[in-house]
């Protein structure tokens, strides 16, 4: 009788030990190294997030090469419109201080201007809104992709 008891107790503890050891192995393999340092997440992700590429440089970065254009822009009514809104992000043009490509040409200037100035009913009335088709006709011009620039300089527009 006594020997059989011993055997049963030994088996139970062996089984329990095996369960604990396998659970620990699974945990070590499944939980990433920096998990839980600051909370229930992998803190190594923080520097990974911070290391992503900054693609927009801001007007000052444009002014480093295009100083004349920037000073013209900064005197005009479009001063609040960042360069990269109408052109593209700096990273499409410059990499490590060197030009890698031309900025993409704006295909339809009329559409670009219309993004802000088309007379949509949802657009607030204290903002300069234009019925582009009517305005172009009133000026005796033909509606085309570049027509706005015939009269308006986008870098220093006069109303």
């Amino acid at each position, binding site marked *: 009788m006594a020997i059989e008891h011993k055997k049963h107790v030994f088996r139970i503890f062996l089984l329990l030990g095996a369960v604990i050891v396998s659970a620990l192995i699974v945990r070590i393999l499944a939980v990433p190294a920096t998990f839980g340092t600051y909370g229930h997440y992998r803190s190594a992700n923080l520097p990974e997030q911070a290391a992503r590429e900054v693609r927009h440089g801001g007007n000052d970065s444009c002014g480093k090469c295009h100083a004349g254009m920037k000073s013209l822009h900064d005197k005009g009514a479009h001063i*609040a419109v960042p360069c990269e809104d109408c052109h593209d992000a700096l990273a499409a043009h410059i990499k490590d201080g060197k030009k890698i490509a031309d900025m993409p040409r704006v295909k339809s200037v009329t559409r670009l201007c219309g993004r802000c100035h088309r007379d949509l009913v949802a657009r607030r009335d204290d903002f300069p809104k234009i019925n582009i088709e009517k305005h172009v006709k009133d000026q005796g011009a033909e509606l085309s992709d570049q027509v706005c620039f015939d009269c308006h300089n986008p870098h220093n527009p006069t109303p």
Partner: protein
Amino acid sequence: MDNVSRREFIRKAAVASGGCAVFLLLGPGGTGNASHPAPEGASPLGDYDWEQHRYAYLIDAQKCIGCGMCVKACKAENKVPDDNFRTWIERYEISEDGEAEVDSPNGGLNGFEENVTHVKIAKAFFVPKMCNHCAAAPCVQVCPVGATYRTKDGVVLVDPKHCVGCGYCIQACPYAVRFLNPETHTADKCTLCYHRLTKGLKPACVGACPVGARQLADMKDQFDPVRKRIITERVAVLQPELLTEPQCFYLALDKEVR
């Protein structure tokens, strides 16, 4: 062990299982915090000290002209896949009898071209939408693997290396700001341009807005003018009844906007 009595057996078994429990609680099987304690005084982000900041966002819906430049800048800054949006613009056109027509063609990426309705419109406006970086974020609560979290400076992030792409967070978000990235097959959303914040730059959408409708606030900077507006003006949040504590505050929010 000769002729162990029943009482003796139960007593020994209780002691042994108690010992196992103590081992499980205190040993390497315990909480994550015990196994990887935070290094004393060290910041996880180098020179940037995340204890010194707590970000919030202010959207002045009255100012928005619906140009969609923020959507374009967000796409370019974060290489957001086509047909997915980390921020977008909604247009509301509300008729005199209260019927609301809402649209967001391609998220407002290319602006808005035509009016939607031709009935008599009583009021119409644009509303920018994005992640609210909720202080009690449902998306963080439901993530089964701890891949989405809120940083100490108040930004809700997704760890794409740890995310399993189950999509629970996408369903849990009441503001529908999350999507499954078709390239990485993980959850994706606005990071408040964390890569820019940690370098002292503003998010791309804030920088792109030509009318100042989108602004970033640092609630730990008592001289921050945007923080002052948030705490002194009459701001609203989206769906406050859900108690998610959104940190994206709106000025001039209409009741039709959810």
